[in-house]
Every structure is written in structure tokens, then in C-alpha cells.
């Protein structure tokens, strides 16, 4: 294991940033810490880096307890959210900084710098200053600088947060390829679920200083452990209701819930993702409810529908363009909605 965090806690005054966090990161893994702001993800990253001292708990890197080791001796590379490039140094000087501080021979520094300039496609920019670079270029300089002294662990704080949508998309694919190429254990912090789902090997979803769920992107997306994870990873429709004897009554739907077959009644909430709802104009088989089309947004790869059920609850659905065209949907129309996939969360039985 490359990184092991054990029961790390950190308070900022009355605010609990980390609440007894346990985290293990495998050698060469690309891990995303995903969560809303204030969830503690950046604090956890900074605790691993040594930029923040935990109030309790330990951090190990490659089998060595580094809890009391200074940040400069932890062998980590860190990319700051706003890059923190040295403004008065050129790109080449920034990238060579770590080695110059170690007083490496000039020729060695120059060789390493030109190697990294090539790897990060920054040739020709060596003599520029950070102010003369675009956001994407700065971000690559920051990465190159962090990797210059071959860190054991690479830590990135919201690496794409400050970039345009298009550049962000390109850079995250590029980060994935880079990671596959150099294989250094990497943790990045993000609040963007799409980014985490696309880039990471494993996702750790955080909330209020605790880990809600850790797993592969597919696990986290397909089988969310709780309502927080469900809601955080994409848009949802929520139906309130109850479950009793293996049957759930939510909204105007009756769903089989064999895993909740205990006697007695409990409050339950059913979640549906917009793309897991089938919309049709004829009565479908299986559980369904009727609704009226309120609004249609045909821009984008899939058509977004805003519906309203008989109780007046707004429901969001997404359908394939071909489906949309064949149904000929328009506002005011009555349709039938059936969920393909349901995530049912049941509150503790109170008997």
C-alpha cells in the first residue's frame, strides 16, 4: 500500500474538517476525493501532504509513519488549485526549482528540465514567465514542477477547477494518460462528479469530514451506499413513501422491494436518475405513473424533459433523440413514465 491514513481528525475551531478518517491508497492508484465544499477533501489531501497537521491519527507513506515528518521530507509532489507558480521565475526555472534546492549539478537540472518540458509539451515556452501562459499551460507547468524530483506520491488540489470547460475536458483525459504512462500514486481532489467518474480508478466520496463511500466509479455510480452519494453523483428525482413486507409505495408507484421484506412499515425514499426513466405515450408494462410534459429542452445529445405528475411534483427525464422524435412529444401532452432502475433507501425500522 502506498498511503495509509488512520483515524485522522482535524478541527478548525468548532468546524470538524476531518472526523476519524481511514483511507488506504494502493501503489500506482489514481484516486479521486470527491465531495462538496466543506466536506474535508482538501484538508485530507493537505494532511497527507504535510501542509496540515492532524489533531489525531496517523499518515503512512510506503510503510513509513510520516505523521511528524515535515512536508519537505515527505517525497510528495503537490499541485495547488491556483498552481502557485513562482511568478518571478521562468517556466524552466519553476520546473528546475526542486532540483536546484537540492543543489543538483547544473547539467543534471538542465537535462531533467528539458525532459519534462518535452513530456508536458512545453517546449518553446521554457523562457516564458507564468503571467505569459494560458491556464492550461500553467497547469502543466505546475504538474511538471511537482514531478521534477520523482515524488512517491502526487497530490492535486482541484487540478482543473480554474480552467475553461473545454480545456478542462482535454486536460483530464491527458492526466489519465499521463498517469498510465508514469504510474505514480496519485490523489486528486474534486467537487465535479463527472471529472471523478471519468478520470479515477477509485472514488472516495466525502461529506462533513467523513467518507460516505469508496469504490470504483461504476460501483459508486451504480450502487450508491446512501442518499448523499446518490444525490451527489448526478441529477435525481426523489419520491417519498414507505415500504412494508417487501413492497414499496412511493408517489403513485408500487415497486417490489424484496430486500426490505421485514414485517412492519418504514419510511422510504426512491431515487430515479433522469436517464433511467422511460417515457412512452402508450401504457407500458410494469410499474409506471402518468405525467404531463411541461417543458422540452432538445439542445444537447439527449433530450431533457420536464414533467409533472398528478400530484404536481416536477420530474426530470432524459430520453434518446430518436425516442423523442418517434413519440413526437410536446408540452401539454400526457405520457407514461416507468423507471428502469430504482434506488430505494429505507429509514431504520422504528417498531
Amino acid at each position: 500500500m502506498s498511503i495509509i491514513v488512520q483515524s485522522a481528525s482535524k478541527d478548525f475551531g468548532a468546524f470538524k474538517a476531518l472526523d476519524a478518517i481511514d483511507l488506504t491508497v494502493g501503489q500506482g492508484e489514481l484516486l479521486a476525493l470527491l465531495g462538496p465544499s466543506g466536506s474535508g477533501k482538501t484538508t485530507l489531501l493537505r494532511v497527507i501532504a504535510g501542509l496540515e497537521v492532524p489533531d489525531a491519527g496517523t499518515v503512512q507513506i510506503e510503510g513509513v509513519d510520516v505523521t511528524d515528518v515535515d512536508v519537505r521530507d515527505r517525497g510528495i509532489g503537490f499541485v495547488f488549485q491556483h498552481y502557485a507558480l513562482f511568478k518571478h521565475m521562468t517556466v524552466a526555472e519553476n520546473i528546475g526549482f526542486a532540483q536546484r534546492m537540492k543543489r543538483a549539478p547544473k547539467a543534471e537540472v538542465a537535462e531533467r528540465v528539458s525532459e519534462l518540458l518535452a513530456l508536458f509539451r512545453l517546449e518553446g515556452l521554457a523562457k516564458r514567465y507564468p503571467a505569459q501562459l494560458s491556464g492550461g499551460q500553467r497547469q502543466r507547468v505546475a504538474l511538471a514542477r511537482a514531478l521534477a524530483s520523482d515524488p512517491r506520491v502526487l497530490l492535486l488540489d482541484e487540478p482543473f477547477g480554474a480552467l475553461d470547460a473545454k480545456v478542462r475536458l482535454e486536460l483530464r483525459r491527458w492526466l489519465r494518460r499521463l498517469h498510465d504512462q508514469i504510474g505514480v500514486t496519485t490523489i486528486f481532489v474534486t467537487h465535479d462528479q463527472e471529472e471523478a467518474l471519468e478520470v479515477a480508478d477509485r472514488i472516495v466520496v466525502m461529506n462533513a469530514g467523513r467518507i460516505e463511500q469508496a469504490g470504483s466509479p461504476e460501483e459508486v455510480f451504480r450502487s450508491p451506499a446512501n442518499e448523499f452519494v446518490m444525490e451527489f453523483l448526478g441529477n435525481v428525482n426523489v419520491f417519498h413513501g414507505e415500504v412494508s413486507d417487501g413492497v414499496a409505495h412511493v408517489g403513485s408507484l408500487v415497486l417490489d422491494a424484496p430486500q426490505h421484506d421485514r414485517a412492519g412499515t418504514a419510511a422510504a425514499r426512491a431515487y430515479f436518475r433522469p436517464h433511467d426513466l422511460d417515457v412512452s405515450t402508450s401504457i407500458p408494462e410494469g410499474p409506471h405513473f402518468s405525467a404531463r410534459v411541461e417543458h422540452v429542452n432538445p439542445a444537447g445529445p439527449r433530450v431533457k424533459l420536464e414533467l409533472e405528475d398528478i400530484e404536481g411534483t416536477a420530474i426530470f427525464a432524459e430520453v434518446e433523440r430518436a425516442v423523442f422524435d418517434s413519440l413526437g412529444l410536446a408540452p401539454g401532452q400526457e405520457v407514461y413514465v416507468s423507471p428502469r432502475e430504482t434506488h430505494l433507501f429505507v429509514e431504520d425500522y422504528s417498531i
Partner: protein
Amino acid sequence: MRAVADRSRTRSGSPLVRRLIIGGAVTWLLAALALPVASVFVTAFSAGWSAFADALTRSDVLHAAKLTAIAVVASIGFTAVFGLAAAWTVTRTKAPGRKLVPVLLDVPVAISPVIAGLMILLLYGRRGWFGGILDNAGITFVFALPAIVLATIFVTLPFVAKEVMAVLEEEGEDGEHAAATLGASRTQTVLYVVLPNLKWAAFYGIVLTAARAVGEFGAVSVVSGNLIGETQTLPLFIEHAYSNYETVAAFAAAVPLTVAAAFTLLARATVAALEKRRASIALDTSEGGGR
């Protein structure tokens, strides 16, 4: 022609009003700023070049210039070191009471220099709080160079601290943290990351300090005793000469002070222009990263 006139009208009312406003502003600037400065030079040279040269080489003028120079150098040295330390303490440490420092730094600006001088007399004068101790130790403090230097330091104290504090505040700690993650020691971080970042702010603070120290009158006049050829600085000499009807000598001594002020403005403009050029280079980049 008509198009131009139309455009100017839509921009800011009728051409006549615009001319009146611009004309008024220019006249006021000339009357309030340019004319007084010009009059310094005109009066200084009114009795000819040699009278000007004679006035500047008088022993009391040279002595006054020397005192002023000492006060300037001492206050630059002190406020620079103090300013960096105070700014660092306020922005980078958790020292108790650090939040009071910016407020205290406003005291020298808010308080009248004459009051500042009086406070020094009350503390260090012969019958002041520390007067006895100084007297017993055989140190002449007030009505001598130490008090002049102390008064000058007092009025210039905030300049470097405030400029540097603003930069440290704005930049945040990321640069220092980045240096640490890259293996730099604390000394290396200060030498290669922190100080290079602060050099323009510190320079600007020093320019302001020098400008204020050269011209300081109120505080110094209270504590110096104004002894001709002994504890008289240049501004004190000018006032003294002028009230004794030595007009040419007074204005001749004012020339170096005016030139010093011009240098201050020039230095300030240069720094501003350098920073603007940096910013415009930054705007000049359009390449889109990624690929």
C-alpha cells in the same frame, strides 16, 4: 467632421461643457501644482547661478543636508527591517495581538507630527520619563541627532510595513507551501521565493519613506532644538532662512528637496509602468493549453 462632433456629444454632453471642464482642471493643476514648483526654481536662481551655488555651499546648509541625509538613511534602514518583520508577523504568524498591528501602524499617519515630537520630549526630555536614565548614562537624546532620527523613524514607520503586508496578504501562503513541497528549506524559501516577490513592494515603501523623511518638519522641529549648524535639518533651515529674509538661500535649499520629490515620483511611475507591462504581457497570451 459631423460624425466626430456627434460622437463627442454622445460621450459627454456638449463640446463647450467638455472644454470648460477640461480647461478648469488644467488651470487648477497649473495654479496649484506647477506654478509653486516653478517658483521654487525661479526664486532660487533669481540672484544668479553663483548666488545659488554660494547658498548651497554654506556650511550651515551643508550641515543641515548632512543631518537630513543621516535621518533619511536611518529611517530607511529601520522601517525596511521593521516593515518586513511586522508584515510577516501579521500575515504569517499566529502571534497574539497581531491584528492590532495594522491599527497601530495608522497612528503615525493619523497623529500630528508636532504631537509626535512632543511625545518624544515627554519621554526622553531632560524632565521626561526616561530623561533621568539617559542623563545619568551621559547620553544627549533630545535637541540632538538621536531625537531627530527617532522622530523621523516615527513618522515613516508604516510605509514599508503597509506595502509589504498588502502583497503578503494578497499572495497568500501557497508560494511558500509550494516551495516546501518542492523540498526548499525555510532559508531557501525566504531567499528564492518570498523576498523576490516582495522586492517591488518594499522598494515602493522605501521610496515613500525617503520622500517623507527628507521633508519631515513638524516632529523634527519640536525635538531638534533648531540649533543652527548643529541640529538643523534642511526643512528646518529653509524655514529659518525664509523667516530671516534670506529668500535666495531658503529657495536654493528647497531645490534639492524638490528634486528629491521629483525622483520619488519618477521611481513610483517606473514601478507602476513595469507592473503594467507585466500585466499586458499576461493579457497577450491566447494559446489554449491542453491538446
